[in-house]
């Protein structure tokens, strides 16, 4: 049983593939599905470049086997955009200037999304805590935190509008 067939939902699309059992989930996402937005930095769980949402929770895809994703739901950075419209977090990152080289950005966006999904009113401390597993060598983090705050505000207003009778 060196290969096995798995079924994984990635960004809403169901994929059934036969995969070598020692393939990491990161390799599967990048090299089998060609979703190269998810980055490989350290390949040992330290940098957060490979962060994905796994059943809604941020995880390092380099620290898992593709096998372990069988039957699960994954969101990568490619799935943030809806109908050609960027996610409020993506818009805010651009607006505030939270992207320099961009290598950390996909992982950062997903950690930020998980944070705001769980804590829509996240404080600055909370935001910093939730992105502690994502290393950025360029920005010094301040712009990133600001961008997440801007997006949070925008998302709160959007829900207000949606919820209006």
């Amino acid at each position, binding site marked *: *049983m*060196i290969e*096995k067939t798995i079924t994984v939902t990635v960004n809403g699309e169901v994929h059934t593939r036969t995969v070598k*059992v*020692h393939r*990491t989930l990161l390799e599967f996402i990048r090299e089998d599905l060609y979703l190269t937005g998810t980055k490989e930095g350290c*390949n*040992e*769980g*330290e940098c*957060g470049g490979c*962060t994905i949402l*796994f059943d809604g*929770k*941020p*995880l*390092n895809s*380099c*620290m*898992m*086997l593709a*096998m*372990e994703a069988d039957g699960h739901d994954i969101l990568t950075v490619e799935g943030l955009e809806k109908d050609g419209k960027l996610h409020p977090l993506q818009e805010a990152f651009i607006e505030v200037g939270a992207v320099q080289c961009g290598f950390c950005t996909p992982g950062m966006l997903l*950690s930020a999304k*998980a944070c705001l999904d769980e804590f829509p009113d996240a404080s600055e401390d909370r935001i910093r*805590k*939730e992105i*502690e*597993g*994502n290393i950025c060598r360029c920005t010094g983090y301040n712009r990133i935190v600001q961008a997440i705050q801007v997006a949070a505000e925008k998302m709160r207003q959007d829900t207000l509008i949606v919820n209006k009778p």
Partner: protein
Amino acid sequence: MSTFQYYRPQRFEELWQLMVEYNNAFSLLAGGTDLLVRLRKGRTNSRALIDIKGLQELHGGIQEINGGLRVGALALMGDLVDDARMQQHFPALVEAMKWVGSTQIRNRATLTGNICNASPAADTAPALLVYGARVNILGSLGERTLSLEDFFLAPGRSALNPHEIVQSIDLSYPETPNGSSFLRLTRRRGFDLATVSVACLLIPEAGRIRFGLGAVAPTPLLVIDGSGVLTQTESAQVAKESALAKLAERATPISDVRASKEYRQAMLFALMSKAQHIASERLNQSRS
């Protein structure tokens, strides 16, 4: 990454069979946050990975048992740190788990996995030791329970037989009033392994203080002083210091890339006094 077979048993029967078939050349896969790094670096001779996440019985989460909590083998550190009962009764353990990796790692890493590696530096071990954790073990021949102290045998070696697994960890609520704390010294903040770590549990009415010490002996170490010297506010400073020093002497640190033996010894004493101080401050706060 080296090649291996992958199995995901659904029943314990299958698990025991695989364990016999691979006779020690297998690794159990739960969170995998440690195992995957080892596989990648070729630091294991496992020919098979046995993913235990298919075993429903291990998914118990956090259950209330008589006078305490039972933590299922697959309970995630991320869920444990957010649990109100854990925060209320076992704050030192919650603090220790917060030191483990990042949000992403805690969303995958299990508490049980952290102790099964039997690393002398396991972050959660000192706190589990002061709270008197018990390990429920299941094997093809039946069940048994060990204190965590007896579970650790040597660096990287636990008391688990080749055909046994940890099913859950039991924690009894400590006597009240009490105060507890956890401190950890690393070269840098973040994901580094602990150079020295200390958990402290203070139970003044019993005159007892318990310290769990990490990375200063071949296994995580539990030391206890029941004389009352360390729990009474009126004890003389010299008496306190000598009692503390006596406990610290039980440690047998070694020199390695992270620190020298002497540094560890010195820091251990400093950390123990500080941990005690924090624990007694918390105790006073809980009383007022």
